[in-house]
């Protein structure tokens, strides 16, 4: 099932019983799967047109009136385009707005550089009180939605729209603020978010063949980062590789570097977009173009292990 379908059907399910939930689109309801909600909830699901700044502040107004608005767009327009509205109307004013950006990083594919958010996590992460969550599969997304509603404060949901390989089973216990140790290991920690978790699992296989036992952690919430899980892991493995579909500046690598530099200094290597803009291509082509591959993660892991000596 596509992630956007899970997202929209969960909204639908929750809107039935929770009249506080409002969904506001900015001319991307077809892309984001939320269009049908308007038929069922004509007052609480609506479009503001191509006007993301207005959308963010309108949502803040609704939140001040007791509603829980979800606003949707593509990642770059849901973050860097409306950075000030997120900072002031939403975060500074303490308004409970959920910001949903789809097509993170290179997953904007054929829309290319203008639509590729390589900096969205960095932009949002530096705004006080923001929670940043990036689910890896449909199960995690589904389990996260009630938790996001329950959490009283602004959340940025960085959402891959299309189908994702299943990582979690239905009995998975989700905690919005707790990273998932997907695979235990002792030689190197691989901390991955979003589409890079799948690549990291493949990297784990490559490393296993070379006799390296990797611990793989899904950091679904990049802010606040689960420093306990990270520190516990690096205390055991002695080195870490970060893997993210984002600029290596400002995102997961930065968040983890901040944790380990202060608390447990170990070799850090990183896989991510190396401070360049995006370009058009298919997801698989772009993964290779930007080095967001299992092979690259494995190579960096070997470097990190070597650096321990």
């Amino acid at each position, binding site marked *: 099932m596509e992630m956007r379908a899970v997202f929209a059907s969960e909204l639908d399910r929750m809107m039935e019983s929770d009249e506080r939930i*409002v969904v506001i689109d900015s001319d991307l309801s077809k892309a984001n799967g939320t269009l049908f909600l308007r038929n069922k909830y004509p*007052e*609480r699901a*609506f479009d*503001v*047109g191509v*006007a993301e*700044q*207005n959308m*963010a*502040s*309108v*949502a*803040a*107004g*609704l*939140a*001040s*009136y*007791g*509603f829980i*608005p979800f606003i949707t767009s593509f990642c770059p327009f849901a973050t860097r385009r409306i950075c*000030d*509205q997120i*900072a*002031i*109307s939403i975060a*500074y*004013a*303490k308004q409970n707005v959920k910001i949903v950006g789809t097509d993170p990083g290179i997953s904007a594919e054929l829309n290319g550089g203008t639509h590729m958010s390589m900096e969205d996590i960095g932009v949002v992460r530096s705004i006080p009180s923001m929670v940043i969550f990036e689910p890896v599969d449909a199960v995690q997304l589904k389990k996260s939605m009630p938790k996001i509603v329950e959490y009283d404060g602004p959340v940025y949901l960085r959402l891959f729209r299309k189908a994702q390989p299943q990582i979690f089973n239905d009995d998975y216990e989700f905690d919005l603020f707790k990273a998932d140790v997907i695979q235990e290991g002792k030689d190197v920690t691989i901390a991955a978010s979003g589409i890079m978790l799948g690549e990291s699992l493949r990297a784990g296989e490559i490393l296993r063949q070379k006799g390296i036992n990797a611990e793989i952690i899904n950091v679904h919430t990049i802010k606040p980062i689960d420093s306990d899980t990270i520190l516990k892991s690096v205390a055991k493995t002695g080195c870490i590789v970060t893997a993210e579909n984002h600029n290596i500046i400002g995102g997961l690598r930065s968040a983890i570097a901040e944790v380990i530099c202060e608390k447990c200094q170990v070799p850090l290597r990183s896989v991510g977009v190396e401070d360049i803009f995006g370009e058009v291509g298919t997801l698989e082509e772009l993964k290779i173009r930007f080095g967001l591959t299992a092979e690259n993660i494995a190579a960096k892991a070997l470097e990190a292990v070597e650096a321990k000596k």
Partner: protein
Amino acid sequence: MVMDKASFEEKSKEIRRLTIECIGNLGVGHIGGCLSIVDVLTVLYYSQMNVDPANPKMEGRDRLIISKGHAGPALYATLASKGFFPKDELYTLNRLGTNLPSHCDMNKTPGVDMTTGALGQGFSCAVGIAIGSKIKKDGAYIYTIIGDGESQEGQIWEAAMLAAHKKLDNLIAFTDYNKLQIDGPIDEVNSLSDLPAKWESFGWHVQRIDGHDHFAIYEAIEKAKKTEGKPSMIILDTIKGKGVSFIEAVGAGNHNMPITKEQLEAALQELR
């Protein structure tokens, strides 16, 4: 309930005095754009808005969003005069730890309905609140005041378009059209051209009145309330710094100006 002319004028004088004292105690502040909106604040809080100083978060109350958030001190003076908090608190303006920051903060000040100051955003928030009130069908009126300089923000027009599209006839907006902004006269910086025509073309019910005439403001609000299917814009022709001659004379420079103890006394004297 409408008040008589003398009562309106006396109340506005009191609010102007409190505003000047609030800013003058500190010695600097956004005096011009505060004094220009005192008359509309007087009419709103003393003859129109359904609010309760004892219960500032009352459900279904009318709301006011000062989108030109730098006019906070004028709102604080009005709220203090209404009894939302003690008048003494006005002397804490912009002191570290105060509940009265230069720009409006709903999380700090009783009676403030929205955090504003990043221009353009408060107006969108007001549109969101008006949509919320429509969903809840609580019958509230949502008032908002935008600046004329603020009207150069693109977000104002994004919100204007949506408010008309959503037929928000519970939204009554004012433009404080004092024709001055920080860098000089609006017409020299970036003219708003035919402002009433702009709002009309966006699908709003538009009135243009003397922003210092209490009865005209009261009547315009009454007309706005009777307008169905459209949001209302009431353009207030105002004078930046209204009520204190030496402040008016400063012109664009009174946006944010220092005020000495002697000037404060002179201003209070003029406002007796």
